[in-house]
């Protein structure tokens, strides 16, 4: 296939960027989207131009490193990560627009690479269970009902890619944050920190400059791991419950 790519090029966070047009030829439908960009980059290097920078690592859809907005959709037209999107979902002759995640909380580092460290700070504000090494009781001391274990697992699947923020018209991190809150708050091990966790994480989320949620639902549509929209409701419930209980929140 031959394709026209319009890619956001921006040298650094300080410099202005623009969409730039490239042509790629002989793209195999079996290539992944990132492999297609590899082909482009190899050509650019030999032509003496700067290759396109993008984040990636596992290329298996699990590390959450990759992510770009393809034709206006986070991770492109399929419900998967960019590294697992294959070129067979495009047509010969297509023009494809490629842009970085756009959100105030995710400043562009270069080209398609953005800084998602805000997510790490949200996790640091309570997205854990305090269990210092060696202090753990025998694993079978607390049985976890299968249903709770399944709910926890489903939410723990979030790969922290940031597609939810990129897709949300408000650049909101509600889906990401709710995934972790629901994961930990549905387990008995997570119960002691249930209130401080949600208060801390929501405060951090706001502090990092993510927008609020207007229940648009784009996030859940874009999420490659299928974190469901009602998880946001579950987090809201936890949050209001924590406020009612007046648990010490962290600001």
């Amino acid at each position: 296939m031959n394709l026209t790519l319009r890619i956001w090029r921006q040298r650094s966070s300080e410099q202005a960027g623009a969409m730039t047009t490239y042509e790629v030829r002989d793209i195999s439908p079996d290539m992944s989207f990132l492999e297609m960009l590899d082909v482009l980059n190899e050509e650019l290097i030999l032509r003496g131009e700067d290759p396109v920078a993008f984040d990636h690592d596992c290329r298996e859809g699990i590390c959450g490193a990759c992510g770009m907005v393809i034709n206006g959709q986070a991770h492109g037209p399929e419900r998967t990560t960019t590294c697992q999107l294959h070129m067979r979902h495009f047509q010969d002759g297509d023009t494809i627009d490629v842009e970085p995640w756009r959100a105030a909380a995710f400043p562009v580092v270069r080209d398609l690479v953005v800084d998602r460290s805000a997510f790490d700070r949200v996790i640091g504000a309570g997205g854990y269970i305090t269990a210092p090494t060696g202090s753990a009781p025998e694993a079978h001391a607390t049985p976890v009902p299968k249903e709770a274990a399944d709910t926890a697992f489903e939410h723990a699947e979030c790969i922290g890619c940031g597609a939810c923020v990129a897709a949300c018209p408000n650049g909101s991190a509600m889906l990401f944050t709710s995934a972790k809150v629901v994961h930990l708050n549905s387990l008995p091990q997570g119960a002691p920190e249930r209130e401080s966790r949600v208060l801390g994480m929501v405060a951090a989320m706001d502090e990092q400059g993510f927008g609020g949620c207007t229940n648009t639902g784009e996030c859940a549509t874009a999420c490659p791991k299928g974190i469901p929209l009602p998880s946001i409701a579950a987090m809201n419930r936890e949050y209001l419950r924590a406020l009612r209980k007046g648990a010490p929140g962290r600001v």
Partner: protein
Amino acid sequence: MALATRTAHPSALRTLWGSTIGKKTVMAGTGVIMLLFLIAHMLGNLKIFFGPGDFNSYAAWLRTIGQPVLHHSWYLWLQRTALVACVVLHGVAAYQLSRRDRAARPQRYAHRQPARGSYATRTMRWGGVILGLFIVWHILDLTTGTLNPRGEAGHPYEDIVADFQVWYVDLIYIAAMLALGLHIRHGFWSAAQTLGANSRTRDRALKAAANVLAAVLTAGFVLVPVAVMTGLVN
């Protein structure tokens, strides 16, 4: 470790108003109160089909609620105060959140996202502004009578009939009712989500309920101008 150093105890209310989720909760709470009022209001309005006597005395009765504990019209003023507070809180929260939301996406995508959210979802902000303007106009029209072609205190039936003889008033009302329908269609489900009442098992039921509620309220309200226009009520 120094985990405790950042622990502070702001009051729950301050935390509520200070966080995005909290502000949204205020919107949802006030929205639901207004919604309850509108359901009652709509049912009340439908009394217009029983003729001027019934309707006017119903309006008069409204002013006697709570008597003799409350003075004449006190209940109404309480309700008005509450509703004004709701509109103001709802509007201020909406305004502040909208600004924040816009700031969180400073640069738009060159390739606009194919619209996927429903029309109702995307029109919440403008729809809300339309509703706000409508409410001001509506109060000047039917409560104070300032803008009403007739505007006679104690005769709402006649005022309404006078109103809907005018084509552009019909237009304004009907447009506002459609805006209301859309606002509720997303708003009701959204409020359930915000207040944490939604869950995976309830999601579909809540969406269906929102559609029914929006349709019933819009139809219920629109019936009045339509009835006047068709001469069913005069």
